[in-house]
């Protein structure tokens, strides 16, 4: 399938500062890619470049087989087949109907068709009764739904969403996500959403890309990104907080024994013995108990708690068991076990819960 939009070695430099560096990505109709990354990673800049709102310092943008990087009429034509939903919805000083009709009027669609499409899309976003309401008097969630309707009514081939739910309350967030799910299910539009809410990326997207400091570090399924990050930078960003350097000491079939600071950790990996590696364990994969238990987990270590950080319903436990480990348990469990700093505990985790990558 030919990609509807493609970025080739896209870079952007603002006042000598490199904001994007050699970004390559492609989207086909029906794709839903969520780009996650910290603030200032260049996510919005990438969307602006792809939506042809600004020009890149270098690289190319191919839309539906045509190079639209350079200026000219092709950019307007391409832009008219895309839509952009901003983090902070901007509604024009018009009523809801006229706001939604704007994009169609820019395209000189006929009046009857405009009426039909606007009514249909307002129904889709659950705002059929708002036709005549002054758009500026709406709540944040309603405004965002108007902005979504305004984008959808043009039936874009590519839809860009820049943190579309960042300023919304939980009810509005779920309404917006519901609408997005419906668009995705129709398979007609390619969606590219940037967000710093990893959970939302996981909920909504079929693919996730990690953008850090202007570079796309990894693109893959949500499971790939969260459970098998390709680098320590991705791992750090997606919340893998135990990243331990070591070396594969021995291997039996896929089960390797990794030497981490003298401790032997068993993990499943394709990598060969003598390889320098990083062992990655998500905090929620570590089980903490007061007594040594007979579990199926291959890794069991005795240690002492060095720090306890309550985080509402969850509590982070920092442990020293020859190597520093960080686990997360429910605050209720922490209370029941009467955990305290310097308490002796046992940390266990499965060999399959460990992700091992090569250390360069």
């Amino acid at each position, binding site marked *: 399938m030919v990609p509807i939009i493609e970025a080739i070695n896209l870079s952007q430099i603002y006042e000598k500062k490199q904001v994007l560096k050699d970004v390559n990505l492609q989207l086909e109709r029906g794709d839903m890619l969520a780009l996650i990354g910290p603030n200032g990673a260049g996510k919005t800049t990438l969307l602006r470049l792809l939506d042809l709102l600004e020009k890149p310092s270098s690289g190319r943008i191919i839309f539906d087989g045509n190079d639209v990087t350079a200026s000219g009429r092709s950019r307007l034509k391409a832009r008219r087949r895309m*839509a952009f939903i901003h983090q902070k919805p901007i509604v024009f000083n018009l009523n809801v109907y006229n706001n939604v009709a704007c994009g169609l*009027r820019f395209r000189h669609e006929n009046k009857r068709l405009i009426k039909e499409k606007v009514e249909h899309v307002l129904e889709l976003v659950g705002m059929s009764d708002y036709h005549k309401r002054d758009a500026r008097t709406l709540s944040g969630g309603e405004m965002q739904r108007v902005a979504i309707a305004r984008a959808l009514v043009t039936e874009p081939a590519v839809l860009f969403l820049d943190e579309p739910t960042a300023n919304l309350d939980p009810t509005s967030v779920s309404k917006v996500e519901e609408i997005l799910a419906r668009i995705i299910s129709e398979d007609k539009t390619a969606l590219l959403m940037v967000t710093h809410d990893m959970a939302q990326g996981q909920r909504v997207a079929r693919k996730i890309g990690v953008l850090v400091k202007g570079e796309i570090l990894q693109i893959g399924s949500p499971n790939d990104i969260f459970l098998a990050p390709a680098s320590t930078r991705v791992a750090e960003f997606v919340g893998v907080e135990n990243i331990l350097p070591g070396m594969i000491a021995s291997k039996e079939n896929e089960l390797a024994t990794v030497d981490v600071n003298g401790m032997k950790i068993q993990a499943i990996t394709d990598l060969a013995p003598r390889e320098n590696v990083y062992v990655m364990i998500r905090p929620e994969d570590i089980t903490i108990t007061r007594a040594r238990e007979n579990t199926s987990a291959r890794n069991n270590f005795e240690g002492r708690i060095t720090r306890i950080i309550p985080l509402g319903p969850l509590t982070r436990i920092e442990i020293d068991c020859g190597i520093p480990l960080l686990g997360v348990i429910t605050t209720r469990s922490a209370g029941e076990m009467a955990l305290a700093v310097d308490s002796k505990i046992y940390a266990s985790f499965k060999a399959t819960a460990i992700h091992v990558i090569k250390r360069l």
Partner: protein
Amino acid sequence: MNDLWGAFEQAIRLIVSRDPEVMNIAWRSLWIAAASTAICVAICLPLGSLIHFNKFRGKHLLLSLLQTLFSMPTVVVGLFVYVMVSNSGPLGMMGLVFTPAAMVIGQTLLIIPMMLGLVISSFSGVDKAVMETATSLGANRLQAYTINIKEAKFPIMTAVAMGFGRAISEVGASMIIGGNIKGYTMTLTTGISQYVSMGLIEQAFALGIILLLMALLINIAIYLLQKRRQYVWFPS
């Protein structure tokens, strides 16, 4: 005091009886000021959009210059246009001197800096994201400017009202360029000046009242326009 009251009564009588001379002067003033304002709007909206939305060298200098020209003396504009259109001036062959057309040119030049400055400052009050949102919705440059103008319509209407007010109330430029010819280039302001010098206080009063009424009517019209229901149209 009685003289003053008597003059006022006589002025009202002239207006109510629709004195042909008074009506003639009022109508001329109105269309000359309206034509100048319309030309000025046609120049200032696109030019203001271009200046506001584009970065170029000397932009700040231009904006400062415009602000300085806000209070340009009307007689200076009158003098400049007179030199241009007088028989020995560069536009002398057009025969514009002492004509209403030359007065329109003079008033247009007089109000352009103010209206342009106010239009640009009206755009500054619009969220920058409006332009970008319109562009991302598929607007071409002209359509994006149009939506921006719609967003700034209230301050722009005020700018238009102020421009019209300055045009209809100025006396210096009209006097020099038009020559205050009775029945041809005499306007409300130049007429007041003429009648006062001739001792015809009633006529001067009548013109003054009409001038004030016009200002009031224009303000009411602007207010009603601002309340009007939405009309949406975009250029292609």
